[in-house]
């Protein structure tokens, strides 16, 4: 006797077997059930019932015979034996040990004896699916029922239609109905018991397994798998589909297997589900919610399809069919419902797809983000996880029961916390109601957020912390000069400036400016390095009633000239060191000396000066613009004052504090965030000279030596700083970083706290990790879970109200990524240009202040499960290079203006080290000299906006609208790019590039490259930055070159001439 038949491994088991190899013993491969037994049932009765079941159902003896390569499904393994379990133990002990797929048993049972006793069942999914386990549980329960015929007598039959168990159950995977195969699988007498109407006991038909051999056809019917053509069609249909969707997860997906699953019934207080609800309608609602969560039209959902030949078949019959839906948000609700119903019917009637239809046989079988299934309600008390749930992050199961359908949600508890899962379930039901109630509405217009969502978003998006009674910064600093005149206000190297000196010099320059004709409402250019004189000049401009146009002293003159023209500025204040030939538009230059003297002009005006008011303009700061010109942002005194005073409160800035200033002098961050927060309380500001920023070690030493207690450092530098060695005790207590996509957490053991905040020039500070202080999110407070994802940017800044919106300006659900929109006291007036302002500063539909405006940041963010915000990239074509915002259109326009360039597209992909690099794709005339192009751009754009590499293409990829399709641009080949500065004659690949040094100078430079970058075998066309160099290593390289070659050289020279060949030309005087 015995079941000896084998069969080639069906797709379901093959998929599981491969999955088992990647994650041995993982919980998603097993099903488990708990069976409450009637009182008085003992161990012997249960064991006997189990044996009887094993005899009746060959699937309980499933094993995968034949080794790894040629595994076949066999039904000759051992069946379950009954293990004892101590009282209080649960069924998890059954699945704790991995199943041996080759030897079996693949079904396990354990009994907790008591009154009553509880039976735990578990199976590997290669043997049984969830329905089978429920059926088995029911059958065991029925067989042990007191009064049922004993196991030694004529066996009790299960509570199922006792039909053709062997044939049907020994052929798991058979589809399109076993009936189609019946002619090829002749039944034996033993397998054709009478079918009792309605199931139930059929004693005569129930064979005692130990006495009645069950014969199985020598060759069980093969599963009805897809034909080669059908499989090919499925592969083509699924090509490029993503199994993982950008769901609103609460943790990052790990590289490993899934976390423990939890299944909850979704409450339906409003009765969205009725007896007439089609499962396909629930699937349609699920798709609509997934679409709104992810913004994707292309949605892949694993649909659980039950292929059992009859409802009582015990075996593995559940297939997960990957189904790709193309979601049309413009379709009406009724169109969506009927389309999904048709699709679901087609999937159920379709063939069994090969296991490798989504992934190559050698790859790990994909886990799905979303799965959907339908099941019948099992017997009371029996619980088991459905298959769709086991192989997905988020599975929705429609549970069909006599009283009407219910909904279950199973979620990976590591990725989705309970609160989020409850919310998702609620959204599906709300969406279902919306679909049914509004059949003619476009599905993209349906609103599925509930009052709970809106309340949560309101609470997370604002703070009750208000900073009132604002005074302008010039007024506050003047007050410090009266209260603590001799206290130090600014320190640069050996030089210090007291509050009294700051006040006196600012007053003097203000009168001077007034004498030069500067009046209220004018703007004055300030082009100065980080130095005490810049503080003097800013205050002076404000006291003259004017606004300060902040100019980058390192920018090319042509660039600055355009800014002066845009702002209508006719007077520039600078320092002696930076005095230069200004373009004709800037008529007049004042030089402010370290001594406090002013070089030009004479008479000090004695007239009383105007007092700036909170809504007057304080600064014009530049931000990258899409038209090819930088945009100027109009910053008011209100914003600056609020920023300073809110920092004083949020960061607990006291007079004993020592501030640090490391940002470029002209930036919005410097003038509205960094410098005044310390001065307004009378604390000194320590100014870092450029040299102090040349390496993380120097910056560390400077911070320690100058006694800085709080400092804000741009992200790339901060990341290097926190990995330096620090003594155990330092004056520094808080280091904030931001203005970039911060990817790494600082180590927990540093002697100071590191936090990440966020702001935008147009609205200034938006979030902070430090509020509320008890819940601050820093390197000291971060939990292991926090460290699983990049540092969040914190919670709303005082006075800020923020919203996360979809592309139609509707709030997205909690946890979903959307565009950040902000309003608050630090909001600027906008840009100097009308259309750009109108486009980004839009009516605020959520506020209570009539006529209020929201600034659309273009940044993609989402709320974490605790309400902290995570930054998730940009919604537009802005990128960040070295912490500075770059609008790629501005770079593209400069490229297009260069001779020989016909088309250009600029992107900033991350290089293999994770650093974003500005890359220009060009269509150009033959013989374009990219080194010369780079130098030409350097004359017009700030350094960080000059592309680091050029990729020549025959044509730029265009989308259907004839716009550049940025996503279709080829991935940079970083290895090749690193040497891509070679002469363009090599582009056709026929001429090999000679990469060997030709001169002693080139050889020396190649050696520096190799030493600093830690690489070998480099050549003269190897690009320093694309090989991993950054501004810090560039500093080291330049020092080494100067030391060895003896020629003066600046970091900028290396940035603009990043290969030994190019730099050698500069050093020998050939270029520049």
């Amino acid at each position, binding site marked *: 006797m015995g079941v000896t038949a084998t069969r080639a491994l069906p797709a379901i088991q093959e998929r599981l077997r491969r999955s088992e190899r990647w994650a041995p013993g993982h919980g998603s491969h097993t099903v488990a059930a708990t069976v409450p037994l009637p009182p008085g049932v003992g161990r012997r009765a249960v064991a006997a019932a189990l044996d009887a079941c094993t005899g009746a159902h060959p699937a309980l003896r499933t094993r995968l015979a034949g080794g790894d390569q040629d595994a076949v499904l066999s039904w000759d393994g051992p069946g379950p034996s009954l293990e004892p379990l101590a009282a209080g133990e649960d069924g998890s002990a059954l699945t704790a040990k991995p199943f041996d797929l080759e030897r079996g048993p693949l079904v396990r049972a354990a009994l907790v004896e008591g009154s009553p006793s509880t039976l735990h069942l578990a199976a590997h999914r290669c043997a049984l699916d969830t329905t089978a386990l429920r059926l088995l549980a029911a059958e065991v329960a029925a067989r042990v029922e007191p009064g049922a015929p004993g196991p030694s007598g004529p066996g009790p039959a299960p509570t199922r239609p006792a039909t053709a168990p062997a044939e049907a159950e020994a052929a798991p995977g058979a589809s399109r109905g076993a009936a189609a195969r019946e002619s090829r699988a002749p039944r034996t007498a033993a397998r054709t018991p009478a079918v009792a109407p309605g199931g139930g006991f059929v004693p005569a038909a129930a064979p005692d397994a130990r006495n009645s051999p069950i014969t199985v056809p020598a060759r069980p019917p093969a599963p009805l798998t897809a034909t080669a053509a059908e499989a090919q069609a499925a592969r083509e249909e699924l090509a490029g589909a993503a199994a993982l969707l950008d769901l609103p997860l609460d943790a990052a997906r790990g590289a490993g297997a899934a976390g423990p699953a939890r299944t909850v019934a979704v409450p339906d207080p409003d009765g969205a589900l009725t007896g007439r609800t089609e499962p396909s309608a629930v699937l349609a609602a699920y798709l609509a919610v997934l679409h709104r969560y992810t913004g994707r039209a292309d949605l892949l959902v694993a649909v659980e399809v039950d292929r059992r030949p009859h409802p009582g078949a015990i075996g593995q019959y559940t297939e997960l069919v990957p189904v790709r839906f193309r979601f049309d948000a413009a379709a009406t609700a009724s169109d969506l419902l009927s389309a999904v119903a048709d699709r679901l019917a087609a999937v159920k009637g379709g063939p069994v797809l090969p296991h490798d239809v989504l992934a190559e046989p050698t790859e790990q079988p994909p886990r799905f983000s979303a799965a959907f299934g339908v099941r019948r309600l099992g017997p009371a008390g029996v619980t088991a996880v459905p298959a769709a749930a086991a192989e997905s992050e988020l599975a929705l199961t429609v549970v069909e029961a006599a009283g009407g359908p219910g909904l279950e949600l199973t979620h990976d508890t590591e990725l989705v916390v309970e609160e989020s899962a409850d919310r998702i379930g609620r959204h599906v039901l709300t969406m279902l109601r919306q679909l049914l109630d509004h059949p003619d509405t476009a599905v993209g217009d349906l609103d599925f957020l509930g009052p709970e969502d809106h309340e949560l978003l309101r609470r997370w998006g604002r703070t009750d912390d208000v900073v009132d009674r604002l005074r302008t910064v010039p007024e506050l600093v003047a007050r410090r000069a009266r209260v603590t005149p001799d206290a130090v206000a600014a320190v640069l190297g050996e030089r210090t400036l007291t509050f009294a000196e700051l006040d006196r010099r600012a007053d003097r320059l203000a009168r001077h400016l007034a004498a030069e004709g500067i009046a*209220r*409402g004018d703007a004055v250019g300030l082009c100065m390095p980080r130095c005490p004189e810049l503080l003097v000049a800013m205050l002076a401009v404000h006291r003259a009633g004017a606004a300060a146009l902040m100019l980058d002293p390192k920018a090319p003159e042509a660039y600055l000239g355009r800014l002066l023209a845009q702002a209508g500025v006719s007077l520039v204040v600078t320092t002696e060191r930076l005095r230069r030939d200004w373009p004709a538009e800037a008529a007049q230059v004042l030089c402010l000396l370290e001594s406090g003297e002013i070089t030009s002009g004479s008479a000090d005006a004695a007239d009383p000066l105007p007092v700036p*008011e909170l*809504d*007057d303009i304080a600064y014009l700061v530049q931000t990258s613009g899409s038209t090819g010109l930088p945009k100027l942002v*109009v910053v008011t005194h209100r914003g600056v004052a609020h920023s300073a005073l809110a920092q004083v409160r949020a960061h607990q800035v006291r007079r004993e504090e020592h501030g640090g200033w490391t940002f470029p002098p002209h930036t919005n961050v410097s003038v509205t965030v960094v410098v005044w927060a310390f001065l307004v309380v009378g604390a000194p500001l320590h100014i870092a000279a450029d040299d102090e920023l040349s390496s993380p070690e120097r910056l560390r030493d400077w911070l320690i030596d100058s006694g800085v207690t709080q400092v804000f450092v741009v992200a790339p530098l901060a990341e290097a700083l926190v990995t330096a060695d620090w003594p155990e005790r330092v004056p520094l207590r808080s280091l904030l970083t931001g203005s970039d996509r911060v990817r790494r957490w600082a180590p927990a053991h540093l002697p100071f706290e590191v936090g990440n905040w966020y702001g935008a020039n147009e609205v200034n500070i938006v979030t902070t990790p430090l509020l509320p202080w008890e819940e601050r999110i820093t390197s000291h407070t971060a939990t292991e879970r926090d460290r699983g994802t990049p540092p969040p940017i914190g919670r709303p800044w005082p006075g800020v109200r923020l919203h996360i*919106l*979809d*592309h*139609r*300006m509707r709030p997205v659900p909690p946890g979903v990524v*959307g*565009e950040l929109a902000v309003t608050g006291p630090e909001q600027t*007036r*906008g840009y*100097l*240009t*009308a*259309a750009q*302002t*109108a*486009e980004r*500063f*839009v*009516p*605020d*539909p959520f*506020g209570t*202040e*009539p*006529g*209020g*405006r929201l600034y*659309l940041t*273009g940044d993609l963010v989402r709320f974490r499960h605790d309400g902290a915000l995570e930054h998730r990239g*940009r*919604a*537009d*074509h802005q990128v960040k290079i070295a912490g500075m915002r770059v609008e790629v259109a501005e770079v593209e326009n400069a490229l297009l203006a260069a001779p020989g360039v016909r088309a250009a597209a600029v992107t900033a992909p991350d290089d293999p080290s994770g650093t974003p690099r500005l890359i220009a794709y060009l269509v150009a005339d033959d013989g374009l000299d990219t080194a010369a192009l780079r130098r030409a751009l350097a004359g017009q754009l700030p350094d960080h906006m000059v592309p680091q590499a050029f990729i020549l293409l025959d044509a730029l990829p265009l989308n259907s*609208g004839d*716009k550049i399709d940025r996503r279709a641009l080829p991935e940079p080949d970083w290895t090749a790019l690193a040497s891509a500065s070679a002469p363009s004659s090599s582009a056709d690949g026929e001429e090999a590039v000679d990469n060997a040094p030709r001169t002693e100078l080139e050889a020396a430079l190649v050696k520096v490259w190799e030493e600093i970058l830690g690489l070998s075998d480099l050549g003269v066309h190897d690009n320093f930055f694309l090989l991993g160099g950054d501004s810090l290593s560039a500093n080291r390289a330049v020092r080494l070159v100067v030391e060895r070659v003896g020629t003066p050289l600046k970091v900028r020279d290396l940035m603009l001439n990043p290969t030994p060949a190019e730099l050698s030309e500069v050093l020998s005087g050939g270029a520049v």
Partner: protein
Amino acid sequence: MDEREDDREYSVVVNDEEQFSIWFADRPLPDGWRAEGTSGTRQECLDHIERVWTDMRPRSVRERLAAG
């Protein structure tokens, strides 16, 4: 929110401070804003604003400065 090149209709709107912006033509206007009269594509509305919004100071600031 950036693939903003859409075919939807927008209106030019203005608030009490005489600050201009654009809004979806088929949606109610947020409180404190009125339609300026122009509608069309996003770009048409922005082009119009570029022409008509010449003094970008908020009305209250303008009046305060004029009052001396």
